């Protein structure tokens, strides 16, 4: 089996088989990381454009690293340096990129649906690196990979996502992907950040943190976007921390094997206390490493890579 699709725009339209294939290939690439030479020549001579229309550090670096480890040629452009600041439309940018015959586009954009739009205009594969509040499929995949490594088959596993669900593309990608794999997802946060209608996406809505985490196998703690400003969706950082912060106290109430994830960057002592962030129950840096592997896997599979070839030792 290989990935029979042009783009990865979200986990909403990916099947369980596709997700598991990506995780399988990603785990093989992770093995490469421990070798003295960490790159493979799979993408030599092909150009990947990283188009970041929104500030990003870790996702951009993770993609760049993935591309470099596959030996791709890389062009970066971000909002500060692109002609977007001169009022060019997304359509014009897309047509320019198409004319330049790039081999793959990685796009981060502040507007929900922007990656979908570009994928319709461009003939090359498009990977969504986050569109507005919609989806962030590579984050979703790396989160699921991190869970899958520890929990195996995700069917019946209980995952609780905590934070600003309404504005989180990470939450949506987690929800779609985990549902595909048969996990049971609960979302938790203040009602200003967790719309009740999200239950229709196939999750349990629980506003009481203690109840939301009691049976969980995993907590995925989202970053609170402080730039949105306290006072609207929540009264203050302190109040948020008191009611929904993941503290030692919360962790003590978890099942013994349960662990804590965070997509980063963390607001210490807002959504997660420093003790937990640095403690034995978190797997945050593992998520980071898996992120590079998942992105390598997607780039490899979307550029026509054969999973069988990889198994027979091309990467290993």
């Amino acid at each position: 089996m290989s990935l029979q699709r042009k783009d990865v725009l979200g986990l909403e339209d990916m099947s369980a088989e596709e997700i598991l294939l990506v995780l399988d290939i990603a785990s093989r690439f992770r093995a490469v990381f421990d070798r003295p030479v960490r790159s493979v020549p799979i993408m030599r001579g092909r150009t990947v454009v990283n188009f970041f229309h929104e500030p990003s550090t870790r996702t951009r670096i993770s993609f760049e690293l993935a591309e470099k480890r596959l030996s791709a040629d890389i062009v970066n452009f971000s909002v500060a340096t692109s002609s977007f600041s001169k009022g060019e439309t997304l359509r014009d940018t897309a047509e320019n990129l198409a004319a330049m015959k790039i081999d793959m586009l990685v796009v981060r954009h502040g507007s929900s649906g922007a990656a979908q739009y570009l994928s319709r205009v461009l003939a090359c594969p498009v990977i969504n690196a986050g569109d507005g509040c919609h989806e962030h499929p590579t984050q979703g995949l790396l989160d699921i990979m991190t869970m899958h490594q520890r929990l195996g088959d995700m069917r019946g596993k209980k995952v609780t996502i905590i934070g600003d669900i309404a504005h989180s593309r990470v939450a949506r990608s987690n929800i779609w992907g985990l549902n595909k794999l048969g996990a049971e997802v609960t979302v938790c946060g203040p009602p200003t950040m967790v719309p009740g209608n999200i239950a229709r996406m196939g999750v349990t809505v629980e506003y009481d943190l203690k109840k939301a985490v009691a049976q969980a196998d995993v907590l995925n703690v989202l970053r609170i976007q402080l730039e949105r400003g306290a006072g609207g969706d929540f009264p203050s950082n302190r109040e948020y921390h008191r009611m929904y912060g993941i503290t030692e106290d919360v962790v003590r109430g978890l099942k013994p094997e349960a662990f804590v994830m965070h997509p980063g960057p963390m607001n210490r002592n807002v959504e997660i206390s420093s003790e937990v962030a640095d403690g034995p129950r978190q797997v945050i840096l593992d998520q980071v490493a898996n992120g590079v592997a998942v992105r390598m896997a997607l780039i490899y599979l979307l550029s026509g890579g054969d999973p069988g070839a990889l198994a027979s030792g091309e990467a290993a």
Partner: protein
Amino acid sequence: MEWSWQRIPAEYLVTGVKLARGGKIAARKGYLHVKKGRVEALGVGKPTAEGLPVLEADGLILAPGFIDTHVHFREPGEEEKETVATGSRAAAAGGFTTVVTMPNTDPTIDNPGLVRYVIDRGNEAGLCRVLPAGAVSIGRQGQGLAELGAMVEAGARAFTDDGSPIENGKLMAAALKYGNLLGVPIMSHAEDRSIVGSGCMHGGYWSTRLGLTGMARAGEDAAVFRDIELARASGGHLHVCHVSTRGAVDIIRRAKADGINVTAEATPHHFSLDHSRCRDYSPRFKMNPPLRETDDVAAVADGLADGTIDCIATDHAPHTATEKELQFDQAPFGVIGLETAFAVGVTYLVEEGRLDLGQLIACFSERPARVLGLPLGSLEDGAEADFVLLDPSGEWTVDATTLHGRSENSCFLGDRLRGRVMATFMRGRLTWRATEPSLT
């Protein structure tokens, strides 16, 4: 239809038609006798007059010319989207003989000179009656009341800050009092922006799923409620624009039962489509108020059926293709609607059994005429001969290349609809004909 004439004569008969009047459609065929642009006579059976040129429109429905209480013709200032002339062409093709233009142009229609300007452009085009609505506040800034009296003298028929709500309740109260004094409705774009915020689609499951900022229904409900209480206090005529929520329909229904001087309109897209249409992020489905839930769609249709909502208005809001190609959250609000309105009504209201055809036609003619206090929309003897010939069972596909306005931002592109406008006449003159060659 027999079209043997080279020109429309000064006096003629239209025969073989089923007359639609008073919310009903005559069972027997009848005729209309037009003389010098006015209705000379009409009735069932054979016409009494003899020896006149005859337009044989066998089996078509003859209805009063349609009246749209809410269009944006964009002139002056945004002529790349639409002009009074191109909008009038679209209106005629949709069966409309009278339209009320919104004042949110650049500059705003907030003084008698600009009211006259729009009327003159309409007369030049000569395809429909263009009745301007003036702005309630100077520059639509929501601060000082514009000179409503002077604008009424110049020909303004209603007032509104449409596009923006009037946030200041005291200003709205003053507008209703002045409207009462001058005998014109105040049309309210009812939206509490402190609730709606920066939303770009209806706030519900689909906005959550798509990650787009939602506009809560409560924003419309609360604003309608406020305006109705102000209308109650002032006695002025409040006309609620583009009603889209179940809550607003209920509030208006209660207000009417209380005897408050309130009327309301609803758009074709709000009684036909729900928010799931936004699923592909196409700005063709972005408008304000937004497409709502299925129960709202049903409530709007019910409101039209029981008379809570008086009329169908298109909120025809042209935008250029360039603007409508932006990302959903960046694209402007608004969709066109003049040329699809009747067919959407037939397809979604009549075919679905919510209204009968006679009621639907009344929603486009005598009911909006009553809202505006115009002696139109019912083809009384002696009235100006504004009428439309309709084929309610004719099917057609909405095609951007055959639309007559300047913009193509329709919700219904590519859709197969039932209900065709075959010909439109204003003051007895042909303004539109579905089949070539057209008469002049």
